[in-house]
């Protein structure tokens, strides 16, 4: 797979680890990245806060350059990704805007290609199985809260690769790496974005809430695919701790860092040592846990095998003994004969279950003479009732008819009560 690559400003600056680990992830998964020529800033939130057409034209210049290559675009930064998707959407759905944008950037652009985010690329384009195959150092024992924030999944008409309320793409990826993905309610809550800089009184509380929620739900680390979320949760974690007089010490990782590490990269290669909240030790702890879990699993498998072996030997011995003494009773007790006597009943019951499930009306008519009452019975047929009726039908048809009549009476009584 070959993609046009738009790193965006952050990946060369504050999000340098994201840039390093994205390139490593691409190399590991066999994706060729061709950096977009002379790309410019997407304008981010400041752009659309200030001037609508500017906020579409800045991304459009990059997209028009990419369109010449005929490649889809990878934009790892969630903000760039969101601005690109918004521009593509506008150009595809509004001819008037499209013409205005083309005039401003002095380039033709018709949004033929598609911009991808990292979670979309990983979960939907590469596929979880391919990632799982590459894992050499499983993250078993890691408890990760996957944090999607706002811009990856909203608005769903522009992004659309995952659920807006309970996205799963990154959860699937961390599970494929061996980690546990924690269910938590704040996965798409906003970190406050630039408010942490412009209005720390507001932004710090938003950062604090996300960290607190992750900790309360049992997460030991947070996984992100957005450099701004990383900056807030990692670089500004200390400020949030100070403001609320708590200690979190929650390491934050880019999803691409975890892939590279699980696929054998050293921590330094992807920039784990450049985080503000120490993030290397937890990865060591996870590795130790994974090793322990592996030993425990091997031990358990060995014990189980030995147990099975001993059981087989004992059974063989008993059988031989029985054959030698000619004890007919012991031979009768072998499970085989027991199974054959039970078999017809089970088969019969299964047959009735299938018939009751597939054709409740017809079967109800067999059990209840009155056609109106048979209709009632058919309408209330659920798994529990089907099971009970099937067992009785296999045993004694009269008993089944009685039970059916009782179900009907019960239902009629209930309906009567409802009307009262």
């Amino acid at each position, binding site marked *: 797979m070959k993609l046009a690559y738009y790193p965006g*400003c*952050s990946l*060369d*600056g*504050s*999000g*340098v680890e994201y840039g390093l680990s994205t390139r490593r992830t691409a190399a590991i998964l066999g994706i060729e990245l061709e950096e977009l020529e*002379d*790309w*410019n*800033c997407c*304008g*981010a*939130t*400041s*752009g*659309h*806060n*200030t*001037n*609508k*057409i*500017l906020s579409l*034209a*800045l991304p459009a*210049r990059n997209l028009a350059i990419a369109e010449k290559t005929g490649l889809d675009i990878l934009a790892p930064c969630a903000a760039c990704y969101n601005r690109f998707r918004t521009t593509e959407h506008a150009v595809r759905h509004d001819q008037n805007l499209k013409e*205005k944008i083309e*005039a*401003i*950037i*002095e380039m033709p652009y018709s949004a033929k290609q598609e911009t991808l985010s990292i979670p979309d690329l990983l979960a939907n384009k590469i596929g979880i199985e391919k990632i799982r195959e590459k894992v050499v150092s499983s993250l078993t024992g890691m408890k990760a809260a996957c944090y999607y*924030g*706002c*811009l990856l999944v*909203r*608005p*769903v008409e522009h992004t659309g690769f995952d659920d*807006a309320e309970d996205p799963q793409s990154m959860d699937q990826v961390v599970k494929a790496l061996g980690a546990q993905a924690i269910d938590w309610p704040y996965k*798409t*809550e*906003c970190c*406050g*974005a*630039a*408010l942490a*800089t*412009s*209005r720390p*009184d*507001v932004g710090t*509380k*938003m950062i604090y*809430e996300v960290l607190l929620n992750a900790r309360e739900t049992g997460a030991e680390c947070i996984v992100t695919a957005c450099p701004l979320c990383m900056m807030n949760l990692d*670089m500004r974690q200390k400020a949030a701790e100070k403001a609320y007089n708590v200690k979190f010490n929650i390491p934050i990782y880019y999803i691409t860092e975890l892939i590279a590490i699980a696929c054998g990269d050293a921590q330094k290669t992807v920039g784990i040592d*450049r985080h*503000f909240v120490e993030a290397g030790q937890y990865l060591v702890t996870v590795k130790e846990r994974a090793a322990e879990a592996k030993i425990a699993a091997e031990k358990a498998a060995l014990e189980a095998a030995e147990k099975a072996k001993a059981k087989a030997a004992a059974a063989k011995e008993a059988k031989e003994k029985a054959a030698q003494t000619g004890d007919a009773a012991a031979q009768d007790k072998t499970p085989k004969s027991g199974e054959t006597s039970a078999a017809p009943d089970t088969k019969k019951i299964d047959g009735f279950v299938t018939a009751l499930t597939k054709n409740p009306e017809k079967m109800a008519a067999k059990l209840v003479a009155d056609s109106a009452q048979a209709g009632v019975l058919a309408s209330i047929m659920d798994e529990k009732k089907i099971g009970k009726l099937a067992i009785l039908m296999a045993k004694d048809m009269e008993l089944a008819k009685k039970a059916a009549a009782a179900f009907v009476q019960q239902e009629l009584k209930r309906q009567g009560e409802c009307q009262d």
Partner: protein
Amino acid sequence: MGNAVKLSPTSDSQKALISRLEKEAGTSINLCYQCGKCTAGCPAAFAMDYPPRQVIRLLQLGLVEEALNTESVWICASCETCSSRCPRGVDIAALMDAVRREALLQNRVTDKKVAAFNKAFLNGVKWFGRTYEAGLLIQYNTATGQYLKDAELGLPMFLKGKVGILPEKIKGRDAIKKIFERAQEKGGE
């Protein structure tokens, strides 16, 4: 009846402004039945003078100046939770954006800090074609008189290779300058 408000726009110009904002946002305020789901989910509502539902209500009542003067539009982080959850399909975030841009045009900025940040950010893009993170902070701190804000983060960021001292410049800087100029001429729409 001392506190009564008029339930229709007071003037034609206000009416026209509201429909222009709606058009820019691609949404209709009349769809809103004031359920408050936007406010309930808004992660920044705790800091707003008028939470999202009330901003929409102000617009519904024709009180457009009041809407333009809210601090809320500057506190809104554009996270789009409101728009994505609205049961009536009102794009509240896009409206917030349109109101914010209009307030900027009319010079009614109630939160100077957010506006100063945006200006510093875009200046970097206009001059160099890319974000100049170090320059952004210096510009922003100077504009808001908070000279030492985040100063403690500067050195560690530099040491970690997370911020360059000099800006990265692209070749097509002239093209970017033109984009800014033309966008300004068009008045944003």
